[in-house]
C-alpha cells in the first residue's frame, strides 16, 4: 500500500491523515445521521450560531466562548475518533485541538464560515499527533521476548523487565498527584515543558521540580536499576 505522511498530505492540501483525499463536506455530512437539504440547512444554522458565538468570543465574551467550546467538543471528538481508536489518544488529541483553537482564535474571520476553520485546525492537530506517534514508533521497538537478562550485565542495567513495567505502574500510583502528572505529561505523552505547562496550568519550573522529585522517588523505589 502506498504510504504518505500526514504532514505531506496536509501540506499538499489533502485534509485527512489516513484516508486521502476526503472532502470536508463529506466529513461533515458523515458526522450527523441526517442527510439531504434538511441536514444542509441544519448545518448552515449551526455554523451561523457558531460564527456568532466565535465573534462574541473574540470580543471577550467568556460565556459565549465556553458555550462554543462545549458545543464543538463532541464534533472534535467524532472527527478524531475517525482516525484514532484509543480512548486515551482521542482524549489527548481533543485537548490539543481545544488548546490550539484557543491560541489561534484571533485568526477566525467572522465573514467566513466557522466550520471549515475549525475542521482545518482539528485535522492539522490530528496529523501532528499522527506524526508524533510515528516518530515515537520509529525510535521505540516492541519486543515479544525481552533479551535474556543474564546474558549481559549492561543490558540488565538498561532494560526494564515485564515485572518492572508493572512495578512502574504501581510506583506511579504511589507518587503524589503533581509528580504523577509531570511523569504522564512529559514522559508518557512526550509533551514539551511548554505544552505540559499549558495543559496542566502549572508553571514550567513547577513541572521541572515535580519531574525531578518523581524521578528521585522512582529511584528510591528501585524502579531504575541504573
Amino acid at each position, binding site marked *: 500500500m502506498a504510504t504518505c505522511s500526514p*504532514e505531506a498530505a*496536509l*501540506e499538499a*492540501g489533502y485534509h485527512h491523515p489516513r484516508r486521502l483525499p476526503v472532502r470536508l463536506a463529506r466529513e461533515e455530512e458523515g458526522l450527523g445521521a441526517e442527510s439531504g437539504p434538511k441536514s444542509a440547512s441544519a448545518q448552515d444554522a449551526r455554523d451561523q450560531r457558531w460564527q456568532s458565538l466565535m465573534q462574541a*468570543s*473574540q*470580543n*471577550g465574551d*467568556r*460565556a459565549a*466562548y*465556553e458555550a462554543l*467550546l*462545549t458545543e464543538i*467538543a*463532541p464534533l472534535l*471528538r467524532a472527527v478524531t475518533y475517525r482516525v484514532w481508536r484509543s480512548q486515551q489518544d482521542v*482524549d489527548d488529541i*481533543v*485537548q490539543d485541538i*481545544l*488548546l*490550539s483553537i*484557543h*491560541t*489561534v*482564535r*484571533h*485568526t*477566525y*474571520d467572522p465573514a*467566513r*464560515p466557522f466550520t*471549515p*476553520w*475549525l*475542521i*482545518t*485546525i482539528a485535522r*492539522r*492537530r490530528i496529523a*501532528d499527533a499522527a506524526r508524533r506517534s510515528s516518530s515515537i514508533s520509529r525510535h521505540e521497538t516492541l519486543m515479544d521476548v525481552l533479551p535474556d537478562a543474564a546474558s549481559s550485565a549492561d543490558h540488565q542495567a538498561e532494560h526494564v523487565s515485564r515485572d518492572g513495567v508493572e512495578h512502574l505502574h504501581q510506583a506511579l500510583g504511589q507518587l503524589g*498527584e503533581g509528580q504523577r502528572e509531570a511523569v504522564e505529561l512529559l514522559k508518557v505523552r512526550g509533551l514539551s515543558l*511548554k*505544552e505540559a*505547562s*499549558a*495543559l*496542566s*496550568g*502549572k508553571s514550567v519550573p513547577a513541572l521541572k521540580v515535580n519531574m525531578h522529585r518523581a524521578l528521585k522517588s522512582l529511584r528510591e523505589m528501585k524502579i531504575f536499576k541504573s
Partner: protein
Amino acid sequence: MTNPRDTDLIRRLAQDAGPVSRPPPPMVSAMIWFVLAVASALGVVLVMGLRPDFSERLGDPLYLVEVATPLMTSVLAAAAAFCASCPGRPVWERFAPIAPLALWLAALIRHAYLAYSASGQQALMLEIDAGCLPKIALIGMLPAVLIVLMLRRGAPIAPITTTVLSALAAASLAASALRLVHIQDASIMILVWHVGSVALIAASASIFGRRLFRWPTANLAIADPR
C-alpha cells in the same frame, strides 16, 4: 455530551479568554509587507548603488517586464503565505504565485530566444556569476525576517508551504531589486543565476518550516481544580 476532561479544560480556556485583535485580511497583510519590504530592498539597492545605465534601461520594455514579473511573484507569494496561515481558506490560494512566476520565466525564455536569433550561440553562453545568490540573500534578508514575524501571528496549519511561499516572496523581490544594481542583462544568465537562486532559497527554506511556525502555547494562569 461533553467529556468531563474536556469540561475542565473548556472552563479554564473560557476563564483565560480575553478580547483578541484580528489580523488584517491576507491581501492587506501582504500589501503592508510588500511596501515595507520594497522600502528595505530599495535602501540596500541605494547603498549598493544603481547600475550606471539605469535610466537607459527604463526605456526597454523587456527589461521592465523582467523587473515587474518577479515583483508580481513576490506580492502573490506573500498573499498566498498569509492565506496559508488562515485556517479554512481554499487551498488553491496557495498556488497564486504560479501565474506571475510562469510569466517571469516566459519573459526570460523569450528574451533568450530573441537574443539567440540575433547573435546565435553567443547569446546562450553561460558564465559563472556566483555573486547573485549572496546578493539576493542580502537584499531579501530583512523582508524575509519581516514576513516570518508577521506570519507567526497566524495559525501554523501548513508550516512548510508557508515557509516556502515566504522565501519565494522575499527572494523574488530581491531578484527584482538586483536588476536595478547588477549590470547583467543576458537572459540565460538571469534565468540560471537569478531564478536559480530564488528557487534554491525557496526550496532550502522548507527545511525550517516546522521550526519557524509552531503552535503558540496557551498560558493558562489557573490550575486545574482537582
